[in-house]
């Protein structure tokens, strides 16, 4: 990977009224990682024959083809299916600033960004199981995507002193354009693996071009009054427009009001609590908007299907459309306290927020009998997010040749569905509960493996002998209770070491959640915990009995009921040494001699250590069949001129 980053060029005119600043960068990245996550094959039989004596890939054993046995694949064959992606990213920003008058300045910021991806995926004949080769021949695909965007932001700034305080007025606008275009060529039915890189050699070539445009514009104004640097009053107003909404719904108005009080500057604080170097109390209330859903969801569109019928081109409906969805509005109240002691050697901040949204933009899930699986809608529910965020930074040692800073941060979030009229007749009737978080665990209460029957058992709340949604209970919450990190930075002469511990307390999917992705008896390996399964009446076990496939009660318990119970959830809390960075800064003398502005050599490590009680692959990904965050070590150097 090659990166040239942030080349800033500054210039100002002689009278300093006009300044130009330009910064830009370019990066080029080549990614050849395998396109399939091989972790999903973790349970293949350990003695599965993968290569024969001559070293060729094998796809059958004793006349039984792997593809016919529970879709076993040869994972080495998947490694022969290559995917090479070259990404080029250009970003640039130009700022022009003109001081028209001492109190009035005009500024315009222009940005341009271009992100190009070129991806070639090859599936050679040698990597395809001959059993399915007859309808899945060798193929390749060539995808070119171009995402470019430009942003224009003019601003006018005016300051005036009024009654010993400063009034700043800001008037601004934003114009944004994002274009994406992708061209995909799929070529299939190659007779020779050597020719996979050229679609001309393929028996069948299809091409598809997709294009989307997104426009966003806004005007905004801000008034800020600062009295003697102690009392601050702030108000903003904005009007946003987005192309993602249908006519009549494109524009919405938002605004916010905030106040602050730097009480550490008050006389009585200065005199009585001299150790307090900084103290600020702030509060704000604002309404912001969100348009982060896909484009064109309000239009009824047909798309070109890549499949022809008897050689003729075909069209298919693109998706369900909804002309009525509109801007999501979030109303947020926030109160914060910032304190600094001993000339800010100890710095503490706490903020509490409460955010409510009554029209979240979501992909509302639909039953497939509607023809599709979802449609974009504003959720007719009132959702609330509250939380407490704490930050504590201490400069423990601050000498010339030895510095040590610790920074601690934690978030305690909480989510609640305040109201949802019509919940019981919506798609969410079995998922959400009013008064509970959206991430509530709502289902059967898991009672363990019944020692007499050997089957997973659940609580029949209404004692009617049937297990159905009437027996659902609120059993837990999948959102973290709290999370955060501790960062320590130590500098000793030219050396610097940073290490970050991350912690999270949460419930997550446990080892039972994917245990029966491959039922026992199928040709798949099982984890050793199944050796302790229930085998006869009286056994107390964590895994239910194995059956020959005719025990409907056992099958339904393991396949259906367990997945809507809290039996598949457990403690997934962890403390992780997320990041360790060790660097050596080149000494001043050497830097000057080489003509550099600065230089450093570094070595970084990620995910070195995880402390957790979680039994499974990883408490973050919570899935046996997905690659967890890897331990990564990288090294490099950085010079600036």
């Amino acid at each position: 990977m090659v990166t040239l980053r942030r080349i800033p060029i500054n210039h100002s005119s002689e009278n300093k009224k006009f300044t130009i600043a330009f910064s830009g960068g370019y990066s080029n990245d080549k990614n050849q990682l395998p396109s399939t996550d091989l972790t999903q094959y973790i349970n293949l039989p350990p003695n599965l024959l993968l290569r024969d004596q001559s070293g060729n890939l094998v796809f059958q054993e004793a006349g039984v083809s792997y593809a016919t046995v529970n879709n076993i694949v040869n994972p080495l064959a998947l490694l022969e299916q290559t995917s090479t992606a070259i990404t080029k990213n250009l970003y640039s920003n130009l700022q022009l600033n003109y001081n028209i008058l001492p109190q009035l300045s005009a500024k315009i910021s222009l940005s341009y960004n271009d992100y190009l991806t070129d991806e070639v995926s090859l599936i050679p004949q040698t990597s395809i199981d001959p059993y399915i080769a007859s309808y899945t021949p060798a193929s390749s695909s060539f995808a070119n995507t171009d995402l470019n965007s430009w942003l224009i932001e003019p601003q006018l700034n005016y300051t005036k002193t009024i009654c010993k305080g400063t009034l700043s007025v800001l008037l601004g606008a934003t114009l944004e354009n994002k274009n994406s275009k992708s061209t995909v060529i799929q070529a299939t039915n190659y007779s020779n693996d050597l020719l996979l890189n050229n679609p001309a050699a393929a028996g069948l070539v299809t091409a598809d071009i997709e294009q989307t445009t997104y426009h966003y514009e806004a005007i905004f104004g801000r008034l800020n009054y600062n009295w003697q640097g102690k009392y601050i009053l702030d108000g903003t107003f904005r009007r946003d427009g987005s192309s993602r909404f249908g006519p009549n719904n494109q524009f919405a108005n938002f605004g916010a009001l905030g106040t602050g009080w730097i009480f550490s500057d008050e006389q009585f604080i200065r005199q009585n609590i001299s150790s307090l170097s900084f103290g600020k109390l702030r509060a704000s209330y604002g309404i912001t908007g969100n348009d982060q859903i896909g484009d064109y969801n309000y239009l009824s569109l047909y798309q070109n299907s890549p499949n022809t019928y008897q050689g003729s081109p075909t069209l298919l409906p693109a998706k369900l459309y909804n002309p009525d969805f509109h801007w999501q509005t979030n109303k947020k109240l926030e109160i914060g306290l910032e304190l600094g002691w001993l000339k800010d050697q100890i710095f503490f901040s706490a903020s509490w927020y409460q955010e409510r949204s009554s029209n979240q933009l979501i992909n509302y899930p639909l039953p497939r009998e509607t023809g599709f699986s979802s449609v974009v809608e504003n959720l007719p529910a009132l959702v609330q997010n509250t939380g407490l965020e704490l930050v504590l930074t201490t400069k423990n040692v601050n000498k010339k040749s030895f510095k040590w800073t610790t920074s601690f941060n934690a978030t305690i979030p909480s989510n609640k569905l305040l109201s949802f009229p019509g919940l019981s007749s919506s798609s969410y009737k079995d998922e959400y509960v009013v008064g509970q978080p959206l991430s509530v665990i709502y289902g059967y209460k898991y009672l363990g493996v019944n020692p007499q029957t050997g089957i997973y058992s659940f609580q029949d709340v209404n004692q009617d002998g049937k297990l159905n949604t009437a027996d659902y209970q609120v059993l837990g919450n999948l959102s973290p209770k709290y999370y955060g990190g501790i960062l320590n930075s130590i500098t000793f002469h030219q050396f610097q070491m940073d290490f970050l511990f991350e912690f999270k307390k949460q419930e997550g999917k446990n080892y039972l959640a994917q245990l029966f992705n491959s039922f026992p008896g199928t040709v798949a390996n099982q984890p050793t915990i199944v050796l302790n399964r229930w085998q006869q009446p009286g056994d107390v076990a964590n895994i239910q009995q194995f059956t020959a496939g005719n025990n409907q009660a056992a099958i339904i318990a393991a396949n259906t009921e367990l997945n809507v119970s809290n039996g598949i959830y457990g403690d997934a809390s962890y403390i992780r040494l997320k990041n360790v960075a060790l660097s050596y800064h080149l000494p001043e003398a050497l830097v000057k001699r080489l003509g550099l502005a600065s230089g450093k050599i570094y070595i970084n490590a990620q995910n070195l250590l995880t402390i957790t009680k979680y039994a499974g692959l990883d408490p973050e990904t919570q899935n046996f069949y997905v690659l967890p965050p890897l331990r990564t070590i990288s090294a490099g150097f950085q010079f600036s001129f």
Partner: protein
Amino acid sequence: MKKMTNLHNHKYITAICLLFLAFLHFSCKKFVDVGAPLSEVESSKVFANDQATLSAALGVYANMGLSNLYIYSGGATLYPGLSADELTYTSSNTELLSFQHNAIIANNGTGIYSRLWVPAYSNIYNANAILEGLISSSGLSDTLKSQIKGEMLVVRSLNYFYLINLFGDVPLELTTNYQVNSTMARTPTDKIYTQLIADLKTASLLLNSNYPSSVNTRPNKWTAMALLARIYLYQKDWTDAVATSSAVINSSQYNLESNLGNVFLEGSAETIWQLANDYHNTGEASAFVPYSSSSTPSYTINSYLLSAFEPGDQRMINWLGKNTVNGVTYYYPYKYQNRSYSPITEFEVMFRLAEQYLIRAEAEAQLGDLNSAAADLNIIRNRAGLPNTTAAAQSTLLTAIASERQVELFCEWGHRWLDLKRTGQANAVLGLEKAPYWNPTVILYPIPLSELQLNPNLVQNPGY
């Protein structure tokens, strides 16, 4: 001097602010109107253009033939074939075994949900979208409008036919309005059949007897009537069944292939509608034909089906394949034979003439017209190299016709499963053959569990 500068400044400031606001105002509304993406077409434009409307109709057919073992790529043959007494699965996939053991659970993800339910309703949506587009269109030629409307009515009716015969009552959706469809309750099958009969009658009037393209890869008048005849038979409307199947037979556009090996080929004279595919041969061939002569077929012909063939039946030679592995002989369905990627020589035969003869024979026998019934039956028997039937009385004739259906229409569109159910014989026949798995509630597949969770007005079938 100072005052003047202040005034000057004020004017300056005001002028700049006004210019600024003017700039914003004029860029406002138009900027956020981006229209449709270049790679897609607005529906109103599609249905104002003949060629585009035709492309949309062809899209329905291309979509029907996609993906291995979906309903029209072998799914409607495989799953009911396992549920009845036609196929035995020789490997270990639990979902497939659950069909064979009549022990399907509502949470069955691949078979019930993604290969049967979802594609059927996806096709229904596509057809409804076109039917609605035709109503509100302007600028389309009348001949094209009638043609496409007739074709989409046939497609929609076919999909509902399979849904009700596999799942029972299902929501009857005749529009694309998702707000109505997402909370629709299950409609009784009788009401759906009434709709299908009305739709197919309309279609047979709108469609011509010749095909819009030169090959029979799109429905024509006789396709609509072939499905209508089948529905009359299922609804026990014998008179209409005789009349409608006669119309197809007497159209003289179709002839039974004398060579059984040609019946399922692309140029067969017997097919009334075949679903073309530009990308692969049939799903049945990929699933049933083993990839080498020394490998065990995944699905073998059930012993009950094997013993239903009379000695000398040519269909045993032409339509059954045979592999001997380690001294054991396995038979597999061999109606569709080409499992290679190309060339494409076989399309899915959606309707063929032989079924019309059998429909007419059964309806005539039910009406007491035993001579005609025997004559029709013998046409099918003779083609298969068998002598005329010896059955003479109504009950023995009906039994003979049922047996003939079993060996003529085996492993084809789930006919055996549907026949046993519509004649009320499923419990008697399969209850014995499939003991101890069988119980009377398994004649209907469960409504997919995820659908029940998302639609509060859907109720599950009994026994699940």
